[in-house]
């Protein structure tokens, strides 16, 4: 009988939500942008910028938190003998879902994690984002109920499960070999923002340490933001949802203590006030996450425990960030981008196509 996993208990998931809820605002205090202590979408977008996949000068930085998420999960998976290299569940579909998840998230300006942190920081616009997330997830559950599936994975080589963790290690090496030079937009092959959100970050070692810890805890507890809503809608199950609520409550309290809570709609950090588009952006992201089986954080943790399809989704998100900024799909504090609406329309069409056509009657 395998040993009991304490993190999979109700207390465990609440504790993990609390730890993340405390650490994220602390990262903001230490330098990360407002309400962006942890934002998987924003941080992957910054990584795409650091690699030069897009040239939006204000959002370029190789975020160590993301690297830590994957490697922390990898360490936990190995320690607890849960590393299971697997892949082959419609990877190309997962890549495309990753692309549009990112496009949707960048219309809202944040992933579900940041939506919660924005709410906990007093940003009222996040309410529309979270409603959108719930709506998108709900649409996803309709497909699931009607037999939507991307099919089975197959066990694979251990080394295949290592591909994303090794890529992240490579990014970490680049960060150490080409460290930021104050005031310089480039160091070796890496781009660095000299102003804007990309220029705001906690010290590298701290970001990495928090990333590793969160990655470790999230792998153990299966923490998932979209899954929290999905399980609530689909099964009336509150397990993951209790972690979701815990994160918001503890982030709110930490913000109060650190003097970072500021209630309102206008003038919130890295946010715009176009309610409908905040809703629609997150609805697209939520739908894409639901169809792919996990929020962007969860995809990183799954990739860390050997899921090659989750790794493909991650690359899809990074490439999606490049599309978003190269094609003017991403929003800014001034509002949605010139082609943001077109991006959403195409994204919904693609997700509906995937959800409607990839169905199997369960025998």
């Amino acid at each position: 009988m395998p040993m009991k996993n304490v993190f999979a208990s109700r207390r465990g998931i609440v504790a993990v939500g609390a730890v993340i809820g405390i650490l994220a605002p602390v990262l903001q205090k230490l330098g990360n942008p407002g309400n962006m202590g942890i934002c998987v979408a924003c941080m992957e977008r910054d990584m795409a910028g650091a690699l030069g996949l897009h040239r939006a000068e204000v959002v370029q930085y190789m975020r160590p938190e993301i690297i830590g998420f994957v490697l922390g999960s990898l360490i936990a998976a190995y320690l607890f003998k849960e590393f299971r290299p697997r892949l082959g569940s419609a990877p190309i579909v997962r890549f495309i879902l990753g692309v549009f998840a990112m496009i949707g998230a960048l219309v809202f300006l944040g992933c579900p994690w940041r939506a919660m942190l924005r709410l906990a920081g007093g940003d009222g616009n996040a309410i529309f984002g979270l409603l959108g997330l719930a709506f998108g997830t709900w649409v996803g559950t309709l497909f699931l109920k009607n037999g939507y599936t991307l099919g089975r994975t197959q066990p694979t080589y251990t080394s295949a499960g290592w591909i994303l963790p090794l890529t992240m290690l490579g990014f970490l090496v680049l960060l150490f070999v080409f460290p930021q030079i104050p005031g310089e937009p480039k160091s070796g092959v890496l781009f660095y923002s000299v102003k804007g959100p990309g220029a705001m970050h906690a010290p590298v070692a701290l970001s990495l340490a928090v990333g590793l810890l969160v990655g470790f805890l999230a792998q153990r507890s299966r923490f998932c933001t979209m899954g929290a809503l999905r399980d609530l809608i689909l099964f009336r199950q509150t397990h993951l949802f209790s972690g979701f609520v815990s994160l918001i409550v503890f982030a709110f309290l930490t913000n109060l203590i650190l003097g970072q809570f500021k209630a309102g709609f206008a003038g919130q950090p890295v946010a715009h006030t176009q309610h409908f588009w905040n809703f629609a952006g997150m609805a697209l992201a939520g739908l894409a996450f639901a169809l792919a089986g996990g929020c962007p954080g969860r995809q990183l943790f799954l990739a860390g425990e050997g899921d090659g399809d989750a790794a493909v989704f991650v690359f899809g998100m990074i490439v999606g960030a490049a599309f978003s900024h190269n094609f003017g799909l991403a929003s800014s504090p001034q509002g949605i981008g010139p082609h943001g609406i077109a991006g959403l329309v195409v994204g919904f069409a693609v997700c509906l196509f995937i959800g409607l056509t990839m169905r199997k009657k369960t025998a």
Partner: protein
Amino acid sequence: MATTVDARGFSCPQPVLMTLEAIKKGSPQDLIVLVDTDTSKENVMRAAQSQGYTVQEVAPEGEGYRIQLVKG
């Protein structure tokens, strides 16, 4: 003869959906669910217990687990 649900290779929430469907369809006395990840194992056990099933045994099998459930 126990009903067997082979959820190996499926990621969440499908193993849970498949288990619940098997329960809804025949409400079998004995139900065996095969899964290949620890997450699926935990989720299936949690869902089955909420439907009034007891976990009789969880045994490693191949790349994953064989979960034996009994009604009541």
